[in-house]
């Protein structure tokens, strides 16, 4: 005894009808598989219809990966085609090749000691090419000082390339790093607002061309 109460159990369809039914089910399955499921899931597109429907590009292997280009302060979004796709051992191409730079020599390093008299100003700049790296550390011996850490193109040839990294009206020192977004002079303007002289000790390291010391002025 079977509990199944299918009306088609007691009155099964004719052999011809059953055959047609199975064929119809097979046909439908084949059409949906070939035109929709396989193109979308596996990029298998024997009919080309999946591509026409825009289904073929949804496979992982051709997914676009968005990468943020944070180098040089010029945050632009790069869309990079992933060669291998998710889960692949294939690396994706670097959106910005400059994130790694091979150099002929070790980085330069210099330390400057500047005595700034009361109400005097000075400026020290590192000349950097695009994407070159600078690391810095500076401090003063007493009090607080005005500082403007900024960059601009050499000789002010391009006024648009004038950026301020950090301004502080009462600083005692700062540490940090910089990647040049454009070629030019990148450095510090200091103004001593104290009634006493202040000694600034600045250490720079990196792949700069040279350091320009603009000297102390009132």
């Amino acid at each position, binding site marked *: 005894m079977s*509990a*199944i109460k*299918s009306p088609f*159990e007691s009155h099964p*369809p004719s052999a011809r009808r059953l055959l047609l039914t199975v064929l*119809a*089910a097979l046909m439908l399955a*084949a059409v*949906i598989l070939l035109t929709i499921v*396989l193109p979308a899931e596996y990029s298998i597109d024997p009919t080309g219809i999946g591509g026409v429907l825009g289904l073929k590009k949804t496979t992982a292997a051709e997914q676009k990966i968005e990468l943020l280009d944070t180098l040089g302060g010029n945050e632009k979004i790069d869309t990079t085609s992933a060669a291998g796709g998710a889960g692949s051992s294939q690396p994706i191409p670097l959106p910005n090749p400059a994130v790694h730079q091979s150099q002929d020599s070790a980085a330069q390093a210099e330390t400057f000691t500047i005595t700034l008299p009361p109400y005097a100003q000075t400026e020290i700049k590192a000349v950097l090419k695009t994407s070159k790296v600078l690391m810095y550390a500076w401090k003063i011996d007493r009090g607080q000082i005005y500082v403007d850490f900024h960059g601009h193109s050499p000789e002010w040839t391009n006024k648009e390339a004038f950026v301020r990294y950090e301004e502080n009206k009462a600083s005692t020192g700062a540490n940090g790093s910089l990647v040049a977004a454009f070629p030019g002079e990148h450095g510090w303007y200091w103004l001593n607002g104290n009634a006493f002289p202040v000694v600034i000790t600045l250490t720079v390291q990196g792949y700069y061309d040279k350091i320009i010391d603009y000297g102390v002025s009132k």
Partner: protein
Amino acid sequence: MIVKLLLLLTGLLLSAASFAHGVAANDASYIESLKGIAVIPYMYLGAKHMVTGYDHLMFLAGVIFFLYRFKDVALYVSLFAMGHSITLLVGVLAGVHANAHIVDAIIGLSVVYKAFENLGGFRRLGLQIDSRLAVFLFGLAHGFGLSTKLQELSLSPEGLLVNLIGFNVGVELGQFAALGMLLLVFEVWRRTDHFIRAAYLANTLLMSAGLILFGYQLAGYLQAA
């Protein structure tokens, strides 16, 4: 219970579109983050798997398609639950690794089988198949599918048995919830005119859907091989 049911229904609506057969990606990382005994989360995930696993639902729909009496529904669903519980627990605990594509292809075939049986196909071919045994055997296949997917995750061995039982209980609860909805739909549907004609078409479509599942998984297996 009503709250749980509502949660399950909401889960079904929200995730049915994005949820393929397996354990959804964010759930996967959630399971992997669990350490020690976490019965309720595992239960929830088990229930969610059942309610949103369209292949299980198709098979279940095929099984109860022509079951009018509650007694029969209970019998067949119990057989199915027994089958998948055995393989789910044994599969994970014994570390039986099966190919997920093959298991899912068999699950697709289970849908084809059930639809074909509902259409009176075996009767026409003169075959006597014990549908209770078949439901039990395909239940084993469905449980294997689940155990295979659970094993792809790095489950914490801490409290694994208890967690698995929790998962399994969740699967049964999810099945009850899904079953409740299906029975409701069938109850209304059977009262309509032309139900018999619609039933023939529906089972033909069900068979086709099973074939699609089968082909999809087979292609996945061949591509991975």
